[in-house]
Each structure stands twice: as structure tokens, then as C-alpha cells.
């Protein structure tokens, strides 16, 4: 035992000369990885949504095959058919990711206080800023990129499935591959995910993280109640509803895309925020608000112990 402890202390003397430091990116990388370990729903939920959608899609294609053989389709109708379903799949996956992101953010800084594991995280040289930033990265960066990758894979599988089924029915499938511009759709989707989910929704996730860092219990109630009360008070006091309009603009203003009932052609258009998106004050005010919420959440995590 003694010899062992001696060999163990050998390198310790050497290492004391050089103050060890893990780079900020490394701490960030491991913090994000640990979030993914803890919250497997981040990738499992969109994957399950995609799998269910593909299952439904395969059934609908099989039933359509009989109709096609009965009365052959006009080849110009094929792309429309597929495009609608592409959009549906993307909307489903994005919607799932949105819900996952909301519940993840609400629990991110609350759960670690509730199960006391915050005392373990704080015993390691990871700053509160890194910890909170890594938690914000999940809904703002990881979830959008994941939903993009899963949507892309889903759409590719849909294309292959429909080709295979149409091939069996003897209909030409050339239009499927030429008229539905697969890469255009993907690009629009990525742009939408990064701008709307990554930037426009940033203050929402910032708010949820702040509530999560502060709430003594029931973070969901605390996240929802204040906006509700503000709307009510504004209505009673001034008989106006600016705050409600503000919330609506934030939630659905650029995100009509969430509504799968919109016409196929309009759908792609609503996905892309208008070109002057980056010069709208709403975006920048939102980002400033997100930064303020984030700073408050970092500060709260510093002061808060387990509950």
C-alpha cells in the first residue's frame, strides 16, 4: 500500500508547478456531452417521431400504389404529393424538438438543484457560465442541428421508399428526383432552424432557463404564470393587449411554418423569415433579452444551493 501511494504522489509534485487548466472549449464539450447523457430524449424523441412518420408514410404509399395502378397519376402531381409530406415530416420533427427543448430548458437548472447533484457539478472546475451556456446550447444549437439531420435522413428515406413503390407500379419516377429539389428543401429547412429556432426563440429559452434556475418548485407554473398575469393586468388596466401581441409575434410570428395545414407552396415561403430578418429590431431586442436572462440565470446558479 505504501509503495503504491508513493508512486501515486510522484507526479503530483511535478504537476504543482504548472497550474492545470482545461480549456473553455473542452469544458464546454464535456458539459454538452453530459447533457446528452442525462437527457436522451433530446435525440430519442425526434428519432421516434421520424420513425413513426416513416411508418405512416410507408402505409400510405402502399395504399396509394393500388390507386395509382387503377388510375395512373399525372406525373406533375407526384412532386406535390411528396413535397407536402416532406414538409409534414419536417414539421413533425421540428415540433417534437421544440417540445423537447421547452421541457429540457425548464428542468435543466431545476433538476440539478432538486436531486442535489448541483453539489457534485460545483465541486468540479466548471464555471457557472460554462454550465449555463452548455444548457442553452442544447435548445439553440444541438436540437436544431439534430432535427435538421433527422429531417434530412427521413426525407431521403421517403424519397427512396416512394421511388421503390412507384417503380413497382411501373410509373416513371424521374419527376420525383428532378422536380422536388431535395437540396433546396434541405437548405430552406436548415436556414429556418438556425434563424427561427436558434435566434428568434433565444429569449424564450433564456426565460425558461432563468425560471429553471430560480423556481423553488414547479418551474412550469412559474414560467407560464407571469406572462399570463401580465396579459391579464394589461387588459384590465389599459384595455390593451400589446404584451399578448408581442408574445404571439415571438411564438408564431415567423413560425407559421409550424402549421402543417398551410398550402404546400406557401409553406416553404413561411419557413424562411423575410430577408430583412437580420435588420428587424425584434430580433436584436430578443437577443439582448436572451443575454439578460442568461446572465441572471448564471448569477442565480452561483447563489443557489440544492433545494
Amino acid at each position, binding site marked *: 500500500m505504501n509503495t503504491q501511494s508513493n508512486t501515486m504522489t510522484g507526479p503530483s509534485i511535478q504537476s504543482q508547478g504548472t497550474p492545470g487548466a482545461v480549456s473553455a472549449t473542452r469544458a464546454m464539450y464535456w*458539459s454538452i456531452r453530459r447533457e446528452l447523457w442525462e437527457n436522451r430524449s433530446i435525440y430519442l424523441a425526434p428519432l421516434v417521431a421520424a420513425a413513426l412518420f416513416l411508418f405512416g408514410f410507408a402505409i400510405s404509399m402502399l395504399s396509394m400504389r393500388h390507386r395509382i395502378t387503377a388510375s395512373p397519376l399525372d406525373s406533375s402531381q407526384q412532386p406535390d404529393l411528396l413535397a407536402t409530406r416532406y414538409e409534414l415530416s419536417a414539421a413533425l420533427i421540428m415540433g417534437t424538438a421544440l417540445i423537447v427543448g421547452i421541457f429540457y430548458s425548464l428542468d435543466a437548472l431545476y433538476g440539478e438543484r432538486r*436531486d442535489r447533484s448541483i453539489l457534485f457539478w460545483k465541486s468540479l*472546475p466548471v464555471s457557472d457560465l460554462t454550465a449555463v451556456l452548455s444548457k442553452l446550447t442544447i435548445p439553440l444549437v444541438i436540437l436544431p442541428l439534430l432535427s435538421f439531420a433527422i429531417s434530412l435522413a427521413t426525407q431521403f428515406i421517403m424519397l427512396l421508399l416512394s421511388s421503390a413503390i412507384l417503380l413497382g407500379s411501373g410509373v416513371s419516377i424521374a419527376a420525383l428526383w428532378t422536380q422536388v429539389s431535395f437540396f433546396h428543401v434541405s437548405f430552406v429547412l436548415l436556414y429556418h432552424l438556425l434563424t427561427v429556432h436558434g435566434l428568434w426563440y433565444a429569449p424564450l429559452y433564456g426565460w425558461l432557463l432563468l425560471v429553471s434556475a430560480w423556481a423553488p418548485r414547479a418551474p412550469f407554473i412559474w414560467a407560464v404564470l407571469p406572462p399570463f398575469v401580465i396579459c391579464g393586468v394589461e387588459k384590465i388596466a389599459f384595455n390593451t393587449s400589446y404584451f399578448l401581441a408581442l408574445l404571439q409575434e415571438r411564438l408564431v410570428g415567423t413560425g407559421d411554418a409550424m402549421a402543417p395545414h398551410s398550402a404546400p407552396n406557401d409553406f416553404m415561403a413561411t419557413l424562411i423569415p423575410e430577408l430583412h430578418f437580420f435588420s428587424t429590431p425584434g430580433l436584436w431586442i430578443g437577443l439582448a433579452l436572451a443575454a439578460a436572462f442568461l446572465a441572471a440565470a448564471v448569477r442565480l446558479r452561483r447563489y443557489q444551493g440544492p433545494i
Partner: protein
Amino acid sequence: MACIEARGLRKAFGKTIALDGMNLRVEEGRILGLIGPNGAGKTTALNAILGLTPYQGELRVLGRDPWAERDQLMRDVCFIADVAVLPRWMRVSQALDYVAGVHPRFNRAKAEGLLAKTTIRHTSKVRQLSKGMVAQLHLALVMAIDARLLVLDEPTLGLDILFRKQFYDSLLNDYFDRSRTIVVTTHQVEELQHILTDLIFMDRGRIVLSCSMEEFESRYVEVTVNPDQVAAARALKPMYERQVFGRSILLFDVKTDRGINPNIDRPQLAAIGEVRTPSIADLFVAVVGNQPGMAQGAAQ
């Protein structure tokens, strides 16, 4: 340089004063036991030392201000704040990966060596481990970190005697090397007696006794006296007296230079009964339990 130096450390939660002007100096290479009743301010003091809570007064840990420089301090300081704070969803292998990823001074091989001595499997999740195994895992993680200060707040709470003993044995044999400092609080003081180098009793936010273990052993004497000798023993003004099976056990402070009973010495006490070194627990009851407002122990 002292490892921990506090002067006039104060902390209040509303009207409750948790730390009431605490002065403390812990040199490097010591194993300090911080003993006190519930609510004495031990955990608050540790939280201040670890930069987990803001405070008033002066406090330096390894030469740093723990609240302002917490992020840097955590490279040199390790702590087990409580039993069972390891996240329950985590796998053992993930815990190793994560600590290796974020801590510059983590020696993964050492942690795996320590785990190999236990029955903990790398694929297990923390929630599947028994309480004792979680403590073993946490200790293995912490001991593999080359820290200069290790703080343990009730590290063995709720563990059975075997795990507790093994915990402290492991700490002494595989970790402590006389250059590191360990601060430990616990209510189970029996196992600590032969481990500590320094002892501090806290009560109501203040330090009520502070001594090295050498001083403890030379200064405090417990004498078991038969009923016929009790009157003679009481004349020597013991700090504390209790009854066990009809015999009286009296605790004396025999320190000659600044003790409360400068006239008594060991030979004198040996003449009236069996003399031995008291346990920390008995001294604790004598010092803290004797104060006004506290339950009066078994004193007659």
C-alpha cells in the same frame, strides 16, 4: 502559507446568524475535524471556504478569495458535500469520462485502480449502486484528483460501520500524503479520532474549542472513579461528570499553563481512579453540551 485562513467570518440568513465572527487557521498537511451540533454553522463555514456562498469578513483559501476566485480555486480544491450527490442517471464509466474531461488534475488510472478494489462495475448506473458503493465511487473520483485541499461534509452519513471504516482507511492510505489538507465534518466522531491531526468544536456559529490532537491527548484526561472517591475527585473541579454503571466518570482539563485547573496533574488523577484519554465525543459533550441553553447531557 496557511491552507485556510479566516478572520471574523460572518454569515447570516435573515435573522439567523450561522457564522458569528469565526477565526480559523488551518496549515497545509493537516487533517482537521470540524465537530458541532446540528445548526452550529459547520456546513455554512465549509460552503464559505468552497466559494458556494458569499460571506462577510476575511477568508483566504490557498491564498485565494473563494467567492471571487471560485473557478480557479476549484482546480485545487475538491469536496464531497454530502452523501448521494452523484447524479443518479450517470453510469460509472460516464462519471470517469466526465471528470477526466473537465478536471486537469484527474488521474483516471488511479480512479480505476481504486474502483477495482470495490465491487462497482463500470456499466452500472449510480441509481443501481447501494449507498455505500456510491460513497466509494465518489471517494474514488475525488481521491484521483490531485487537489491540495479536500473538504468532506458528512461523507459517511448513513453508511454502515464497515463502509465508514473502509472509507477513512482508504483516505489515509491511498490519499493523504502530509502535503494535502483535509477538512472533515461528521457526527460520527468515533472513527475519526485516530485520523485527525486537529480538532475544532463549533457551536452557534463560533469556535468553542480548537486544538491539535497532540494537545488533545495531553490536555484532557478522563478518570473513572469509584463512589468512595467521588468527593475527592469533585474537589479537583472536573469539567464534566457522568455516571456509568454506578461509577462516576470525570473529565479534567490538566493543561498546566492556561488550563482551567492548573493544580491538577496526571499522577494526582491516577491516584483516585482509572485514567485514560477521553473520546472526542465525550469531550464534545463536556464542552458543547455544558453550555447554557443546551441539554445538560448526563451531568448530575
